[in-house]
């Protein structure tokens, strides 16, 4: 064994932990190697020195310090068992447990604050008032969709109508609203420069579009489920010369010709395009445009009547100062007998080339040289088959009508002085709904008003909608008094000049009368039974139309004398949620901070515990 190896083993050799072979080998080497022997001796001396080191007595302070530290120590677990719970809690809190407790409390606080925020911010809609607000915000007519089912339907619809009325003079025809069936689509436009030079839309006109629209009755029902059909849509006026219940008014540019399902279903898609032409010039332009559009569809209509395309009969109205054009699209499967009538009796002489007797779907284009625009093809194509069974058809009728508010000047002048009705919308926050309700009833009685519809939703806070009709004279005072009943959060008052519609309706009435006269004349001259029958049918239709128009006129006359007040009532409880909504961003700061600091405390607690 070499010295180097031996040196490695000397320490273990001294301790006697070598195995026997190694032990004897080392001993052998030590006997012959003085160097290693000396090494061994030095090592042994070192160890002896170490072992000789005596004990070191701790200083006097040692015991005292230890005692002090021990008294700060928590009790051993065995001791805790014998304590009553308050002592246990106190003891536990005296240790790092207090951090745990504080952290838990803080986190709990943060979480509950957060939950409260969440509830208040309306992520969990609980009250109908919230729904209402949402729908209002949408500013769309989506509400129609769900209207019949919801108790607040009419108030909602009203509000939306109102919104739209006052909102702008132009409602895009491209935002149609789908109804459940989605079959009816009415695009309407009206340029009414004569009666509304400022181009502002009146509430009734929108309502009219709905009311006068295809499923007139059905829609009325939809708007007022309780059967108060008159409610929201009451002041509506039929559009001129509509030859069926269903018609749509397309905007002058012909952008969006309406498609009307002639079916009786009350579901419909209604998009209202409102273009208030500001000036007579633009009105003229729009007339031009209108003229060309229906003309185009007319020209294609007859050829396609056998199948491919839908026919688009056009019914132009020629009057001294304006045109009304109604375009109808007839189901392609129908073989239609089209009659073309020059609408304006004054121009009849120039248009006599038409063939009124055609049974076989002949289309006639008649130019109206007497019109302002040479390009304007003014036609009226009457589809008898469509007319006789409109309800059963699944086909679509599209009517594009340009209503230039060109009522016969003379006959309408007297209506102009009619006092403009005002409509008002109030959004009110009340502290006590029942109290408000009784006061409102008193007010309504005092001002000879009629509550047309009410809708209320009970919930965490009551919200309700009212539609009140009140004589025009009492409107301002009534509104003022209602405002005094609560905190007004929203108010809108809009003028509504019914005279324009009255004028239109009257002009249409006179048109119808003229048509009736003309038809009567034709019946007399009828040469065949067929022809006579056709004319009789047409006559019946015209008369039917006249009745409706007259009805509308009556309604209009009445509605002109009343103002509508729409109320959106909310109990103040719901209002408290609003600040929370607004401050929700800042409101999250607190819970977040609380939870974060709580977690920090927990971390500290666990750190302490691990150390301990």
């Amino acid at each position, binding site marked *: 064994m070499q010295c180097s190896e031996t040196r490695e083993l000397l*320490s273990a050799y001294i301790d006697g932990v070598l195995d026997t072979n190694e032990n004897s080998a080392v001993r052998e080497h030590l006997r012959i190697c003085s160097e290693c022997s000396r090494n061994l001796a030095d090592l042994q001396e070192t160890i002896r020195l170490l072992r000789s080191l005596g004990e070191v007595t701790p200083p006097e302070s040692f015991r005292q310090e230890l005692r002090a530290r021990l008294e700060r120590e928590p009790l051993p677990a065995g001791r805790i068992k014998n304590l009553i719970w308050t002592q246990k809690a106190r003891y536990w809190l005296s240790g790092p447990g207090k951090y745990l407790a504080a952290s838990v409390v803080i986190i709990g606080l943060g979480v509950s604050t957060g939950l409260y925020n969440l509830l208040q911010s309306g992520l969990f809609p609980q009250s109908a008032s919230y729904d209402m607000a949402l729908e209002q915000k949408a500013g769309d007519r989506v509400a129609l969709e769900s209207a019949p089912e919801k108790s607040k339907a009419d108030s909602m619809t009203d509000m939306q109508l109102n919104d739209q009325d006052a909102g702008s003079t132009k409602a895009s025809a491209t935002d149609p609203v789908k109804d459940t069936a989605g079959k009816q689509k009415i695009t309407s436009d009206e340029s009414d420069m004569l009666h509304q030079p400022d181009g502002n839309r009146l509430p009734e006109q929108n309502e009219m579009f709905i009311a006068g629209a295809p499923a007139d009755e059905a829609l009325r029902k939809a708007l007022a489920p309780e059967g108060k059909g008159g409610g929201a849509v009451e002041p509506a006026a039929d559009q001129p010369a509509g030859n069926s219940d269903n018609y749509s008014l397309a905007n002058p540019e012909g952008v969006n010709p309406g498609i009307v399902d002639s079916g009786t279903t009350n579901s419909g898609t209604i998009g209202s395009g409102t273009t208030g032409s500001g000036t007579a010039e633009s009105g003229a332009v729009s007339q031009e445009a209108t003229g060309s559009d229906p003309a185009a569809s007319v020209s294609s209509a007859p050829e396609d009547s056998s199948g491919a395309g839908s026919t688009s009969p056009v019914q132009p109205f020629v009057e001294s100062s304006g045109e009304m054009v109604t375009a109808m699209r007839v189901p392609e499967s129908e073989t239609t007998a089209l009659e073309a009538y020059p609408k304006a009796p004054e121009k009849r002489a120039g248009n006599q080339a038409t063939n009124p007797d055609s049974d076989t779907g002949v289309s006639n284009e008649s130019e109206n040289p007497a019109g302002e625009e040479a390009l304007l093809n003014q036609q009226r194509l009457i589809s008898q088959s469509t007319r006789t069974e409109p309800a059963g058809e699944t086909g679509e009728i599209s009517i594009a009508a340009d209503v230039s508010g060109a009522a016969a000047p003379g006959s309408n002048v007297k209506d102009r002085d009619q006092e403009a009705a005002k409509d008002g919308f109030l959004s009110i926050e009340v502290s006590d709904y029942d109290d408000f309700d009784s006061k409102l009833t008193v007010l309504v009685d005092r001002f000879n008003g009629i509550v047309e519809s009410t809708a209320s939703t009970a919930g965490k806070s009551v919200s309700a909608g009212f539609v009140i009709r009140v004589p025009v004279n009492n409107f301002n005072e009534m509104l003022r008094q209602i405002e005094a009943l609560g905190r007004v959060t929203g108010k809108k008052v809009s003028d509504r000049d019914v005279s324009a519609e009255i004028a239109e309706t009257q002009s249409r009435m006179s048109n119808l009368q003229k048509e009736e006269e003309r038809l009567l004349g034709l019946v007399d001259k009828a040469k065949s039974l067929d022809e006579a029958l056709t004319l009789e049918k047409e006559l019946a239709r015209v008369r039917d139309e006249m009745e409706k128009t007259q009805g509308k006129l009556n309604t209009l006359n009445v509605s002109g004398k009343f103002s509508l007040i729409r109320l959106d009532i909310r109990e103040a409880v719901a209002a408290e949620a609003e600040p929370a909504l607004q401050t929700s961003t800042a409101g999250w700061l607190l819970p977040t901070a609380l939870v974060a600091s709580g977690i920090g405390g927990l971390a500290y607690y666990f750190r302490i515990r691990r150390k301990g």
Partner: protein
Amino acid sequence: MNISDDALIEKIKQGDLDAFEQLISNYETKVYTIAYRYFGNYNDASDLAQEALIRVYRSINSFRGESSFSTWLYRVVTNVCKDELRRRARHTTVSMDEMIENGRSPAVENKCRPIEEMIIRKELQDEVQEVLNSLSEDYRTIVIMRDIQGYSYEEISYFLECSLGTVKSRLNRARNALKERLLERRDLFTGTHVEAN
């Protein structure tokens, strides 16, 4: 472990601090000495000895009596000192010189010896402690465990979590290092070369 220890421990488990003091009074000097050997100064010795005793008190409930109380107690002390030494080696920048400086403060020795011998022994012991302090933490730990505390190789390998071979070779190197430094102070050696047996 004797019966009185057993009884005292039961009292301690009920939170009796006096019982604890009574119990450790038999061991505290040894505990303190061990700590002093590891750290070579009285402050650290006090601190670490107290720390070890407190740890014993805290975990007295986990003491089941499988080994004697003293064995368990010294094991705790060893672990506390070893861990602290290792922690310092990693984290602190306390220089060896500083530790040696601290080690110079007078130690109170056992009083059972004649005064002259005591003084000589004290100087000697201080010198040995100084040399011990100059060793690296690893060497100091293993030498103290083996030659002062008297742990077996197996026990040391358990404490240090290393193999027996490592214990052997490290102890050999530590002892040799200590020997070399002691030889530099020749006077410590009496010169009597004892033959190995």
